């Protein structure tokens, strides 16, 4: 008999059904992936199993756990199942943990509530669990507050809280989405190690994770189960069109089809940029340290890094939004003034930026038409209203939206539509350089593909140069000519797309690439991920900032800062760059 049986489950809010007629089963000990795009009903299903849906949700159908019906069950019944039979890990540990209570306090309450331990035993078990999830110095973490821990550590705490009562089923709802790539790899491995025979329902939009960690997978589209089966079979021959769509849209870091190196003239150069921030009463925070980059016409350079890498600061300094303490920017042969307000109109026009979150990047009080029109008003005030309208409509069409969108407000647009409006606002000025700061991070697979295709097309047609900031290496592989890797504000490696992925020269680059899950069940997941986490900018390690986490570190790495040098066309900042063989 199965552990969990879901039969004809439907969840409605008013007239809308977010889950419609769901049927599936989970067996003891297996790991199952629940995939789908945002809005497909994955989280809703998880909430339903635990009885955590809001009051105004209408649930029908059956959820049987170990022969007990959970739909419509009393609170007492549900509480008996929660934590003890079913545990859950949520996406964002900063929000999911109580910031006002110490970590130990939150965990011990679970044991106390369910009468699983008493007296001094309680604390001992909590500390033991914290150790099992890999927290260094578990006793100290017991007394810490969540905000004192890093992202990865918080998620480990969440995992501890989910498993401490030894449940039969563990639900993980996007457990790694809010984490850095290298930390994600650690958490996924930890999940695999620590769950033992507990059934795992892993909810994710990332097919790479499913391929590496789930034996079976269930595919949801708009609340309906459209495909299910063994992961290997489904990947090899998907049953439903939507599954095919998802697989096609999943970017692969090992893909062969990548852009060939660009050959245009250099249009933009940044030399030895230094960016630091001063906070009241504290020392200056060095966000970017001695980073140089050049950009050619028609070229896409990706800037890659995890949190604290300084990629956003670097680009904002380049644009003049934040001051650069030293270094210079050269555009079209002429030096560019620091602050954006001091640059010429022409210079400002030529460098445009697209932000990560399209909805906050658009003024909620203005209609789409006004938003795009404003750019023209500033730079070409001599145009008549009619001509401007024509140009705005052209810009919309360029991004694949028709004139019907002109009168809409930002809150009436979907994420993909809003991002395209933001791009249209930038492109209407016919810039020479477009900077995309995590521009596709908030978008679903298929929509993301469309936006990337749009960028490629515009680049091919107009010779637009693009700086593409991203934490997603698979996407970077797909669209960039060259890649710049940053860590804690330093330049780590700068190389051609092909070279970087095939033969990285820096251990960090190697670890970063290895950490990305590949959407192919044949490719084994990384069982020895990079340890540790990105150190705080307030207290950077001495010498090479990566050395505490580096497998190849030697004495000099802790003492001397490596200078970037060129080796076979790649720039690397590593003392051992010429000796290490990191290709696979």
């Amino acid at each position, binding site marked *: 008999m199965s552990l969990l049986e879901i039969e004809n489950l439907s969840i409605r809010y008013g007239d809308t059904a977010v889950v419609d007629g769901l049927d599936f089963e989970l067996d003891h000990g297996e790991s199952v992936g629940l995939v789908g795009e945002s809005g497909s009903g994955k989280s809703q299903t998880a909430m339903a199993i635990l009885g955590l849906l809001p009051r105004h949700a209408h649930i029908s159908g059956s959820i049987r756990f170990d022969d007990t019906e959970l739909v419509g069950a009393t609170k007492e019944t549900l509480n*008996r199942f929660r934590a*003890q039979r079913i545990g859950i890990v949520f996406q964002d540990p900063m929000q999911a943990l109580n910031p*006002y209570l110490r970590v130990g306090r939150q965990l011990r309450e679970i044991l106390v509530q369910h009468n699983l331990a008493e007296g001094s035993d309680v604390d001992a078990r909590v500390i033991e669990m914290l150790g099992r999830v890999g927290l260094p110095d578990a006793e100290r973490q017991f007394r810490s507050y969540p905000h004192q821990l890093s992202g990865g550590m918080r998620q480990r705490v969440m995992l501890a809280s989910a498993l401490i009562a030894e449940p039969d089923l563990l639900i993980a709802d996007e457990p790694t989405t809010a984490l850095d790539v290298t930390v994600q790899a650690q958490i996924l491995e930890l999940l695999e190690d620590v769950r033992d025979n507990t059934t795992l329902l892993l909810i994710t939009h990332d097919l790479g994770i499913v391929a590496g960690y789930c034996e079976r997978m269930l595919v949801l589209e708009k609340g309906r189960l459209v495909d299910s089966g063994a992961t290997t079979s489904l990947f090899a021959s998907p049953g439903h069109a939507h599954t095919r769509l998802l697989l096609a849209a999943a970017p692969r870091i090992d893909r062969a089809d990548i852009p060939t190196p660009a050959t245009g003239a250099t249009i933009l150069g940044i030399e030895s940029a230094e960016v630091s921030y001063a906070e009241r009463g504290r020392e200056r925070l060095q966000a970017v340290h001695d980073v140089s980059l050049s950009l050619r016409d028609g070229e896409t350079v990706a800037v890659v890094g995890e949190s604290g890498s300084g990629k956003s600061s670097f680009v904002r300094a380049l644009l003049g939004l934040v001051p650069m303490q030293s270094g210079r920017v050269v555009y079209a042969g002429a030096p560019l003034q620091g602050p954006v307000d001091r640059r010429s109109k022409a210079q400002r026009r030529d460098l445009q930026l697209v932000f990560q979150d399209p909805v906050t990047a658009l003024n909620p009080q203005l209609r789409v038409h006004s938003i795009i029109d404003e750019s023209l008003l500033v730079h070409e005030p001599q145009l008549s209203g009619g001509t401007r309208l024509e140009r705005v409509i052209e810009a919309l069409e360029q991004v694949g939206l028709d004139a019907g969108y002109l009168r809409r407000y930002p809150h009436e647009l979907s994420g993909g539509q809003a991002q395209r409006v933001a791009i249209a606002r930038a492109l209407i000025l016919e810039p020479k350089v477009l900077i995309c700061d995590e521009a596709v991070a908030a978008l679903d697979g298929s929509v993301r593909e469309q936006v990337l295709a749009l960028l490629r097309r515009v680049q091919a047609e107009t010779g637009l140069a693009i700086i593409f900031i991203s934490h997603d290496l698979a996407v970077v592989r797909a669209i960039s000519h060259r890649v710049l890797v940053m860590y804690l504000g330093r330049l780590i490696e700068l190389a051609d797309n092909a070279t970087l992925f095939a033969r990285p020269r820096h251990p960090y680059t190697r670890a970063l690439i290895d950490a990305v899950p590949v959407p192919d069940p044949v490719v084994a997941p990384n069982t020895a991920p990079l340890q540790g986490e990105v150190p705080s900018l307030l207290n950077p390690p001495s010498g090479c900032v990566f050395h505490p986490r580096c497998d190849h570190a030697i004495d000099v790495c802790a003492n001397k800062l490596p200078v970037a040098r060129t080796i076979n066309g790649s720039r690397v900042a590593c003392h051992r760059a010429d000796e290490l063989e990191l290709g696979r």
Partner: protein
Amino acid sequence: MFRYTLLRVLGAIPTLLLVIVLAFLMVHAAPGGPFDDERALPAEVEANIRDAYHLDEPLPKQLVRYLSGLLQGDLGPSYRYRGRSVSELIGGAFPLSLQLGALAMALAIIVGVSAGTVAALRQDSYLDRIVMAFTMTGISIPVFVFAPVLVLLFAVKLQWLPAGWSSTSGASRFLLPVITLALPQIAYIARLTRASMIDVLGRDFIRTARAQGLGTMTVVRLHALRPAMLPVLSYMGPAIAAILTGSVVVEEIFGIPGLGQAFVRGALNRDYTLVLGIVVFYATLIVFLNLLVDILYGVLDPRVRYR
């Protein structure tokens, strides 16, 4: 924690100083002296009086004199009640106001927080709507409307409680004034608690707590109450100020010889030192209480304490 407290204490001092100087200037900027409305005094006598009260000195000098007096606890002599010092008068009237105010505040917090929490837990139920209706009237009807109506009802018509302060001497005479004073604050605090609790109950970590199988009372007690109380705690500053304001009205209506009544009398009598003294006294009290509130906030919210 220590550093946080120290900063707050240091920050309070210039605040207080500013208030005292401001009040001082206002009192002395008012046209008309304290003796204007009495029968005309012979010039000699008037000169003597002015000398005794140092009224002829330049303003800055008077200010310094006043401030140094303050440091020694001397608030000056009353203009109106010759022979009695302001400190004396305040000392006589304050304890009563303190009792009223403290009781009202306690009542407001206990009833307000409970009502607000219950309303939040039973959101949109009949109970919730009743609480909302009551609190809406509570914040919409001024104290000076409530008070006479309550007196009319309970003292005159029903004769359950005494109408005036001096008519009896038992504890029952506290009842109406305290309730009247507390009512608007009960309403405010209840609404604030309800809104804050609803907000906290919607947060992710509450969902986590419920997912861990914790019962409702445990979730509220352990996880929700603390953060939900933060806005209420922040409101304590203005709440104290509101109770002080309200006490002026309540003391007038019920004829209670407290500090509020003394202030109004003093203002109408142009007893400027008394008035200034009361303002300084209250300001000090409030600044001090706000300091306590700030520190308490630091205790409740660890993110403020540990950067």
